[in-house]
């Protein structure tokens, strides 16, 4: 790619079930200002803003970014609004990165957000038109059957999901911004939590959060001057496929495999598990860690659960996944994908505090959405590509 892009500022809000202390502008701005502060810049230094969130119905505001324009310093500037279902936080960042790659702008602010407490995600996700009958209860109702199919296929032990949940919930205790921080978390507590959508238990599910995440991106020479060394963007990839069609593998979707292959090719990665030091992967329900390990090529098909079992995905494993606690610990839907990117970039920049992995040179962010149909990914490096 012609122009290099570096992440020079990262800002996140505290994630919580209800951020009753702020308005929508206040929430989005909290992340934006923190990202600017990290980059030692102000709104005046920003050329364009790219913002993303999931359906407008969650907040009941149509095109809320138009209302938010001044709160995010976009007045007189280009403002793009991305919406690619759950993957939106990732694809929003990808679009923002493309503005730098293309040489169109010098510095771009990108934001993902959701204020789910304005309504109720279970309502927002089960709105169905006349003539139908709502049978699929929320996202869990849609994804639980895919997990059943995965278990049937792979023969994964039934506590695989609990193990991932335990690991992510322990990681969340190291992340002060995480929404769910359960101090006395242990295996039994998760195993004994109520079953919501078999085989997904309450503590194996993501919460519904208010929150925003922002990043400041800059072209090469400006990124080099950043107060904290940038995370360089080595590659980005996006793929989509239809929701349902004969022969569709929704457990291990082609779109995800294609996006990963594209990402590794651009990033000159031949063995992702060896060459990528850690990754933040979109895991809204615990079992998806095992499933995505296969989809992303970190494990052979049918063996993703072994990585969970062997502790490979733990903070001290050979392929740490979701060091921040992941989507299982904070899920402001429109922000969730961008949080994955931001946390992956923080690992490169040594900004992850207690959940920092030592010596990260390459990291990956990942998001997916719809019925496992939309994928966006990003590969970051400490060195320039």
């Amino acid at each position: 790619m012609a122009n290099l892009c570096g992440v020079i500022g990262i800002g996140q809000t505290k994630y919580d079930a209800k951020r009753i202390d702020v308005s929508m502008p206040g929430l989005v701005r909290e992340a934006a200002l923190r990202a600017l502060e990290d980059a030692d810049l102000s709104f005046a230094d920003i050329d364009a803003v790219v913002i993303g969130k999931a359906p407008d119905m969650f907040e009941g505001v149509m095109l809320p970014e138009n209302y938010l324009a001044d709160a995010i310093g976009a007045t007189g500037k280009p403002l793009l609004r991305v919406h690619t279902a759950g993957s939106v936080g990732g694809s929003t960042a990808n679009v923002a990165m493309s503005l730098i790659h293309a040489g169109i702008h010098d510095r771009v602010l990108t934001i993902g957000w959701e204020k789910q407490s304005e309504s109720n995600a279970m309502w927002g996700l089960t709105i169905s038109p006349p003539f139908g009958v709502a049978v699929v209860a929320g996202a869990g109702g849609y994804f639980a059957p895919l997990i059943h199919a995965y278990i049937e296929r792979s023969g994964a032990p039934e506590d695989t999901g609990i193990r991932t949940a335990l690991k992510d919930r322990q990681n969340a205790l190291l992340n002060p911004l995480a929404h769910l921080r359960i101090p006395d978390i242990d295996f039994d507590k998760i195993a004994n939590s109520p079953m919501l959508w078999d085989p997904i238990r309450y503590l194996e599910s993501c919460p519904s959060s208010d929150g925003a995440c922002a990043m400041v991106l800059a072209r090469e020479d400006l990124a080099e001057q950043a107060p904290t060394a940038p995370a360089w963007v080595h590659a980005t990839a996006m793929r989509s496929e239809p929701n349902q069609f004969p022969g569709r593998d929704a457990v291990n979707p082609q779109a995800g495999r294609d996006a990963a292959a594209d990402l590794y090719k651009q990033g000159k990665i031949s063995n992702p598990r060896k060459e990528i030091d850690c990754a933040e992967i979109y895991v809204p329900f615990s079992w998806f860690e095992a499933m995505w390990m296969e989809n992303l090529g970190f494990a052979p098909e049918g063996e993703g659960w072994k990585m969970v079992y062997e502790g490979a995905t733990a903070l001290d494993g050979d392929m740490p996944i979701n060091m921040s606690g992941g989507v299982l610990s904070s899920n402001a839907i429109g922000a969730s994908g961008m949080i994955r990117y931001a946390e992956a970039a923080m690992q490169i920049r040594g900004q992850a505090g207690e959940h920092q992995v030592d010596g990260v040179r390459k990291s990956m962010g990942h998001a997916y959405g719809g019925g496992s149909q939309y994928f966006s990914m990003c590969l970051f490096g400490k060195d320039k590509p």
Partner: protein
Amino acid sequence: MADAPDVLRGPHVLEYPFKRSLGPVLSRFFTSLRDRKFEGIEDKDGKVLVPPQEYDPQTGETLTEWVPVGPGGEIVSWSWVSKPRKKQPLDRPFAYALIKLDGADAPLLHAVDAGSEEKLSKGARVVPRWADEPKGGINDVVCFDLEGK
């Protein structure tokens, strides 16, 4: 499918009582409204904005200087609604208007109950008609009336 049947249609209702947390600026504005008072906020150029904006519309900087305004004001522009809709503030013809409250620089959008459009003009003086039981919200002002009506 040459004999495509008539396409089915049916009512679909999207309904939710969205709950909006306010943050410091809107919280103060609505709390004042509940007390039947208007307050505006100064932008970076010293212009008084009502409703108050949390951030400067041009620069995005945080705004903090509060100024009491109103309760009366004058009409800056309007549009006459001859067939009011069910959700709208009045059930007889009225105007949506931009109203510059006394002491404010930026006008506020609200309804004006003037009876007929002929009574409206630029600069016409209006005063708020408060709800019997203000709850804290823009609807604490039912509408504006022409002054001396």
